[in-house]
């Protein structure tokens, strides 16, 4: 596709029906109230010249280029800041306007380095375009007066430059940083001729900037420009695709020059991101061409041998023969596999199909086991389906936002920007988290309540909130009576004094009055929405907590419309999809239990294979079974279990005990150290398929380039299945989606054709909802009535003791992703070169630890060393780290405790001790 230039209508759209009719240069147009004259003109195909306006930002009215004449009105108002009124007649081109505009342009140009021919924005510069549009022919003022042409360029950011000499002080960058991103890192310093853009008096790299690129995208000149464009030149074609990092699922235009990817530009029509992005999606794509990538299949007999590169046929035959051999010797159930939430729906689907139909068992699990499996269980029990209830856009209608165990500004940054916008507009915020995450207090945002609970006490808090709602008469009785069941039993349970805020205060560390106030606000403040993350799920009572939140939402009537709901913020790009595609050992695609004879029959018919009616092994069970010898071979698609799973020593022992480990991945990761077969995978730039984001949105992933390995991942899987004697063949991934649609009622209406036409759809997408379902449970719950489930608080087995007095909790950081396999291979390391241990200054002081000291982190199961950073956002008694770097291997210390219902590991609560690595050097 040639370079897609998205139209810029100058000012944002206004919601509501089109009711105001005006005439622009004689052409009629009808637009919603509040629309600007500039946008109305653009809608009838007339581009009014502009420099300071762009439709991602509210109009500002500073450049005076967009002047128009309006019948009956004096002067020449700016069309960007003038709203339409019924019957208005506008003229955009008159000799007077032309003269005025030329005058404005002359002033700009006289202070601009006229090196257009060698400028990095040549061909993509609005200043250049506008000079043409206004018919500028001369600059009477000459170029010798005072000017900014010697201003220094700031090259500190790894991804973009700020060439100050080219700045026209239009403020678009400043407004983008505030309005779109919500970071407010930029200001205009000085006044008049002296005014200039400043990143808070420092350079970009040392400012508050989070490198989202919104300013770069908004800049009409070459001032803010991607380094890749400066180096490689302007792109000439684009492909629309989806970010492969987090569960927000941002859409991008991948812009290329020939076969080379030049930049990623967030796509305005992207349903999840509407033109915004974060530093990862926009800039951190270099890993796809990193020299560490393995492009040839490799095999070896023992993991102590050197890898032998082989051709695809050999690798596939070797894998299939080994798998069958192990089954002959140890039984059909002795092998299994893990699907990846980093791969497409189609790739996940074929792997679980290979396991169920070709391996002949249900030993398939996915990395969602270790992140959101409690979401699946908890929401299914209460609502009837395991998916977030809203679309992201819905947050714009929320009045009270409750964020529990999530750090959206780091983990889900583009959604966080939406949420922050709503908070700036006046929505109230309740944060429930042991740490003072950035959302608690950031520019123009302050949480009304921060319930800074002790790790592991989520359920006690959610029960206390519900207790207040119930005992203070704040339940939405109409909603409950009409739409829910089992309320009375639940009410009796939750009303017990042991669930009162006063009773749990000592346990949770949160003052009872604070809990009461938060509960009242949530129940009475208007639309209440809950957003949560792994700080909820990764606990030994993760599933209980998910049900507790669902109870709270139902009791307050906050389900089934815009601005409310219970919303898991999914980690990896395709966590939702990998679960939807039947990656759990007990469920076929579409969350249907393997024991259901009717459903199994449908799959057996379509797949031509007999399927097992019994659930298979989950990931932690596979490890246990590997150690006890009943499980012998594991196929791992795009996961790094040897780094990401808890209690690493145990995982390593299990992997080492296996006869065959097959790893399908981009890099030789930690798990590959235990592998006998390495099947090189494709990056998202080579994939053809779909990802499903946290709002159930199915987005197309289009190939930007051909697979560098010569094969699509689904092809490899199908060929292994074939070589094992099970016929499996597809001509394209679109054919795989057709099969998914035929077998899965919630996907019945999904096809590549529809996705290409509509951009994206949110499942369920079927005859009842041909264009998808943005908001779930509108008229009734998926299971009929919403079910209240009793959620007693059972403390975790993991306790702090004299030996391990601190609690370790984990999380992630904006610039790095998951185990860092991708982001560590990009310039993002500039922000987070290593994992560090955050510790409260008091805890540090009593241990003689100073900022930057190397410390030893020890738990009951292991120890590792890393650098300490003193942080008063930590509560006393709690330390925190990330798991982005294999050297640190935070999972060396995490335990085998897991969620009672799903075995999701308890990453968030580990009793630890911290001490200086070499006390002698402490000085």
């Amino acid at each position: 596709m040639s370079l897609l230039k998205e139209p810029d209508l100058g000012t944002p759209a206004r919601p509501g029906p089109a009711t105001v009719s005006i005439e622009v240069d004689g052409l009629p147009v009808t637009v919603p109230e509040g629309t600007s004259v500039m946008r109305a003109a653009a809608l009838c195909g007339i581009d009014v010249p502009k420099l300071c306006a762009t439709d991602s930002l509210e109009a500002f009215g500073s450049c005076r280029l967009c002047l128009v004449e309006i019948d009956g009105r004096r002067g020449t108002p700016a069309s960007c800041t003038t709203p339409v009124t019924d019957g208005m007649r506008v003229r955009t081109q008159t000799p007077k306007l032309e003269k005025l505009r030329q005058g404005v342009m002359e002033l700009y140009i006289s202070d601009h380095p006229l090196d257009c021919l060698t400028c990095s924005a040549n061909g993509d510069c609005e200043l250049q375009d506008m000079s043409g549009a206004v018919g500028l022919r001369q600059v009477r003022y000459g170029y010798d007066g005072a000017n900014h042409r010697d201003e220094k360029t700031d090259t500190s950011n790894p991804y973009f430059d700020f060439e100050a000499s080219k700045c026209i002080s239009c403020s678009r960058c400043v407004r983008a940083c505030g309005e779109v991103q919500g970071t407010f890192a930029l200001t205009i310093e000085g006044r008049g001729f002296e005014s200039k853009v400043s990143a808070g008096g420092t350079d970009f790299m040392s400012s508050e900037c989070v490198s989202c690129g919104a300013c770069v995208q908004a800049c009409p000149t070459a001032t803010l420009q991607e380094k890749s464009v400066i180096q490689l030149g302007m792109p000439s074609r684009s492909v629309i695709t989806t970010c492969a990092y987090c569960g927000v699922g941002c859409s991008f235009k991948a812009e290329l020059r020939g076969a080379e990817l030049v930049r990623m530009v967030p796509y305005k029509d992207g349903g999840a991101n509407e033109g915004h992005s974060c530093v990862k999606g926009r800039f951190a794509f270099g890993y796809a061409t990193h020299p560490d990538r393995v492009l040839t299949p490799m095999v070896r007999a023992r993991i102590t041998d050197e890898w032998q590169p082989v051709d695809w046929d050999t690798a596939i035959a070797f894998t299939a023969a080994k798998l069958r051999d192990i089954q002959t010797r140890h039984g059909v159930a002795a092998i299994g596999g893990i699907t990846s939430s980093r791969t497409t729906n189609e790739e996940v689907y074929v792997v679980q199909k290979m396991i169920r139909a070709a391996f002949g068992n249900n030993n398939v699990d996915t990395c969602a086991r270790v992140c959101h499996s409690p979401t699946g269980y908890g929401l299914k029990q209460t609502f009837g389906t395991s998916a977030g209830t809203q679309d992201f856009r819905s947050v714009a209608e929320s009045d009270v936002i409750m964020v529990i165990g999530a750090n959206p500004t780091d983990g889900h940054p583009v959604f966080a920007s939406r949420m922050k916008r709503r908070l700036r507009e006046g929505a109230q915020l309740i944060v429930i988290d042991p740490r003072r995450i950035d959302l608690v207090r950031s520019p123009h945002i302050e949480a009304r309540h921060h319930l800074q609970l002790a790790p592991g006490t989520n359920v006690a808090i959610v029960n206390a909130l519900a207790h207040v709602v119930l005992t203070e008469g704040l339940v939405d009785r109409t909603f409950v009576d009409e739409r829910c069941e089992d309320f009375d039993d639940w009410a009796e349970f939750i009303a017990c004094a042991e669930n009162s805020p006063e009773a749990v205060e000592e346990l949770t560390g949160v003052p009872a009055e604070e809990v009461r106030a938060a509960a009242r606000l949530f129940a009475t403040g208007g639309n209440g929405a809950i957003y949560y993350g792994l700080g909820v799920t990764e606990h030994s009572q993760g599933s209980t907590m998910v049900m507790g939140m669902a109870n709270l939402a139902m009791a307050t009537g906050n389900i089934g419309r815009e601005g409310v709901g219970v919303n898991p913020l999914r980690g990896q790009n395709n966590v939702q999809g990998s679960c939807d595609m039947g990656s759990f050992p007990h469920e076929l695609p579409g969350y249907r239990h393997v024991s259901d004879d009717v459903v199994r029959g449908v799959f057996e018919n379509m797949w031509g294979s007999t399927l097992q009616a019994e659930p298979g092994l989950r990931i932690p069970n596979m490890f246990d079974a590997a150690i006890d010898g009943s499980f012998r071979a594991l196929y791992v698609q795009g996961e790094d279990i040897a780094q990401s799973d808890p209690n690493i020593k145990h995982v390593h022992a299990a992997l080492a005990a296996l006869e065959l480990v097959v790893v399908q991945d981009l890099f030789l990761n930690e798990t590959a150290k235990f592998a006998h077969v390495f099947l090189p995978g494709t990056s998202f730039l080579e994939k053809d398929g779909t990802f499903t984001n946290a709002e159930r949105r199915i987005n197309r992933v289009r190939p930007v380039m051909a697979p560098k390995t010569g094969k699509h991942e689904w092809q490899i899987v199908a060929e292994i299945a074939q070589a094992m004697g099970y016929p499996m063949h597809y001509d394209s991934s679109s054919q795989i989606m057709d099969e998914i649609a035929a077998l899965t009622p919630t996907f019945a209406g999904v096809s590549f054709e529809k996705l290409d036409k509509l951009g994206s759809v949110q499942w369920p997408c079927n005859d009842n909802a041909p264009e998808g379902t943005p908001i779930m449970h509108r008229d009734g719950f998926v299971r009929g009535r919403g079910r209240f489930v009793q959620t007693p608080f059972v403390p975790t087995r993991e306790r702090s003791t004299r030996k391990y007095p601190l609690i370790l909790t984990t999380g992630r950081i904006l610039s790095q992703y998951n185990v860092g396999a991708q982001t560590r291979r990009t310039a993002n390391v500039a922000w987070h070169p290593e994992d560090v241990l955050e510790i409260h200054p008091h805890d540090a002081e009593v241990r003689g630890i100073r900022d930057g000291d190397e410390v030893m982190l020890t738990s009951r199961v292991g120890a590792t060393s890393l650098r300490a950073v003193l942080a008063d956002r930590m509560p006393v008694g709690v330390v925190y780290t990330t798991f982005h770097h294999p050297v640190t291997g935070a999972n060396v210390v995490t335990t085998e405790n897991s969620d009672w219902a799903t075995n999701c590991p308890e990453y968030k609560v580990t009793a630890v001790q911290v001490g200086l690595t070499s006390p002698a050097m402490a000085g």
Partner: protein
Amino acid sequence: MSPQVRMINDIAVQFRHQGLDTAAAAIAEHVRAFWDPRMRAELLRRVDAEPESLDPLALAAALLLTSP
């Protein structure tokens, strides 16, 4: 403690607020729905070999698993 015993004991605590019979049935149903057959078999072996390692409620549930 075997992983199976640890897991069923963890499940049992979550159902303790219900009456013994209801709770035992719910736990047994949970295990049937989510556990691989070899894990259930191992659990039953443990029930015979070391019944004292099981929470009484877990034990009651495990005994229900022997009937189909």
